[in-house]
């Protein structure tokens, strides 16, 4: 049983390289462009709202500004969501939950930061308990300046994101896989050395084909302890993971 479960951070002989756009076949390129086009027109937004900016979302989504007409719609679970909105300041405690939810979203996934707080801490710039720069902890596709931004500004940045998704430029999510070790290190610096989530990001990086030199490193090596801890507590906790790995190789 145990030998089928991949250990997080373990070095593997085969490392996946990020596929170069030029290398893809014509068929794949056409299909990817088609998928991107469709994806940009149906963004499901995870209902995980923090800070003051959440109050700008009801007018944005509902009849006055009506973002639903361009395909933006709320979604209650991260697995089915495409877009995570960080609508204001994040306390350290909330950031843990945001990271957990972000990791549970399926790629490709997009993050937008609302207001000054996500950019530089805003009015909480000197708070000990507030995150200053969101993009140090998860990759962010766009920010909206202001305190708080008006719905027009929210609309504008979402339309901009849609345009970039359509043209294949909104690829910040890949950074999380390619530079996972760096992100994990910054998270651990904030939360402490025992920080880990239930999601096996390294295996996901392999799954999506974005396992790079920066995916694993000194920080991900630490995660090994927690995987083994989980396995020792409940031996058959992770049966699916083993089965999937086996089927893939």
């Amino acid at each position: 049983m145990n030998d089928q479960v991949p250990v997080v951070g373990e070095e593997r002989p085969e490392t996946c390289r990020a596929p170069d756009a030029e290398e893809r076949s014509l068929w794949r390129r056409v299909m990817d462009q088609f998928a991107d086009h469709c994806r940009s027109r149906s963004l499901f937004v995870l209902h995980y709202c923090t800070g003051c900016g959440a109050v700008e979302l009801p007018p944005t989504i509902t009849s006055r500004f009506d973002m639903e007409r361009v395909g933006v719609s709320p979604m209650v679970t991260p697995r089915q969501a495409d877009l995570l909105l960080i609508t204001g300041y994040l306390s350290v405690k909330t950031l843990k939950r945001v990271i957990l939810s972000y990791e549970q979203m399926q790629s490709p996934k997009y993050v937008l930061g609302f207001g000054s707080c996500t950019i530089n801490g805003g009015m909480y710039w000197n708070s000990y308990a507030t995150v200053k720069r969101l993009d140090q902890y998860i990759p962010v596709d766009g920010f909206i300046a202001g305190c708080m931004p008006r719905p027009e500004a929210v609309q504008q940045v979402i339309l901009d994101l849609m345009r970039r998704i359509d043209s294949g430029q909104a690829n910040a999510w890949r950074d999380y896989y390619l530079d996972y070790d760096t992100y994990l290190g910054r998270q651990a610096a904030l939360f402490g050395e025992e920080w880990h989530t239930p999601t096996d990001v390294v295996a996901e990086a392999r799954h999506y084909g974005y396992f790079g030199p920066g995916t694993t490193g000194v920080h991900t090596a630490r995660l090994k302890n927690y995987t083994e801890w989980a396995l020792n507590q409940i031996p058959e906790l992770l049966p699916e993971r083993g089965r999937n790995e086996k089927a893939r190789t």
Partner: protein
Amino acid sequence: MSLLDLLLLLSLLTTLYLYAFGNHRNAGHLGMVVYAVATGLVIAMAGPLADGTGAVGSTFAPVMLGHVLSWSMDGLGWFFALLTTGAAFFASWYMSGEWNAEQPNKRIQHGTLALNVFCMLLLLSSGDLLSLFIGWEFVSWAAFLMMTQLGSHAARAAFRYMLYALAGAMAVFAAILIVKAQIGSFAFADLRAAVPALSDGLKWLLFGLFGLGFGVKMAIVPFHLWQAPAYSFTPGASSAFLNAVSARMGLFAILLVLGKLIGFATLSDLALPLIPMDAKTLLMWVAAITMVVPTFIALMQTDARMLLTWHGIGQGGYMLLGVLVATPLGTAAGLMHVLNYASYQMALVLAVFAVIHRTGTADLDELGGLIKRMPFTYLALLMGIIGLAGLPPMNGFVSKWMIYKSLLDTQQPLLLIAAFVGTLGTILSVYKLIHNIFLGQLRAEHQKVGEAPGSMLAPMLILAGIGFATGFFPGLALGVVDVAQAALGVELLPHGLGGVYLATGSLNMIWVVGIMIGAIGFGAFVFYVIGNRRYGVHQFDNYAGGHFLSADIRYHFSHEFYPGLARLIGPWYRGSVVNMENGLMIGLKTAGDLWHGAFRIAYTPFYLLVALAIGLWWAGLDGGF
């Protein structure tokens, strides 16, 4: 010696043997062999019964008080006998392996099963009203013995059952004596011939007394309170057997006496004063209420066994409604539902007891996520609930479709709506059953639970397979139903292997199931073959509003499963019938106390003298002196 003699003798000897040597570890296997042989004997009897008029007689004909008791099995009895021996076979199989090894009272379990089979066969082959009554009493007491085997809670429920059953039996006995007083005979044929000449009042009386007596066994509303606890707390295969067969004895007796001897047509001539309703419609509405009320009581249960047994009562309503429609389609639907119900209900109860066997509980609030640990039990339960809910591709769909169709054809929209409402409640509650046991979060204490052993899996999977086979090819079951329908004197339903063919609309399950399997297969192909790569995640990598989940956090929503619905039906559910029963109990107790007090205080010799005088006077009236 006829085949019926052989069958009864075999059954009696099995009972005696298993009572004596039921503790032997191979008792279950012996039971399997015996019930297989008994099923074979029943099937061998089919030949002369197929045309509907034949019967297999017994040479055993004792004389009691000048009356010759006779036993002979006609097509109707044969149909239920096949059900009985078949169910006993699977029950015995279930008890043959690991289950058998771990039971403290295996001698009683095997013995009572055999005794129940014997008594039921005796009832099903009764040849006149007196032997019917004897069989009826035997069946009641045998079921009582089976229910009390574990004592405690089950015994209390069984005692409650016995009170109902005795009241019912007295009603039946009174009705039989009235018949005897009126027509001077216990023979079925004499009653049948004499019915048109009876007065309306007498017909109402017979209808009421027989309906009460047999209705108690079927647990039709308002006599439904005893059945669920009594069947639920009986162990394992015994409970499955009771669920599948025992209550159907009531349906058999209703079909025999009210359907065949008195005749449903006679009942439709009995008009109620003031309201535009006749005796048959009245009974149909009782059946409709029996479909709806117990089903929604089932919805509120937190014990898996109770949920299933309450459904058993509700499903009995469907059968009764079907046969009361009394068209060829309706009768076939009701009778087919008896067979279908037996197959899936038995699979369901056996599956639930397999879960109890492994986890030690049937509490729906304390289970969850067992699909990874007991996948085959899950499969049996899944197929069972699809049948119970009346959805294709299982057999429950066919018989329920036929019941709906027969109600449509006879233009009874309100009863049709009642049937739909009952089905809705069934669908809701079976989802609760499978969700709370098998889906969702696996509890830490169940991490090491294993699959049920083969001896328990095999019977439930085969029963579920029978349910699927007779859903795919309903003609297999309809062929068996034909025998009973012919014996009832109802015109046969035109049918083929795939379903029923009617001028007003047909059902061909081969197409229905074929298209279903095709569609599901296409979906599976899309998702598993041409779809993207899948990446599974483990159970605690789940979204709970951003919370980190671990084994000590319950995120399996099972307690108070339908809160909105519960609020809606709560006032009804809290039970006027329970209050009524309590009132009756208090009244009965008071009357008993009064009588007991009067008896105890004084005059005992006086009462004896009065009783003696009345007895002598009665004997004198009879011309004894």
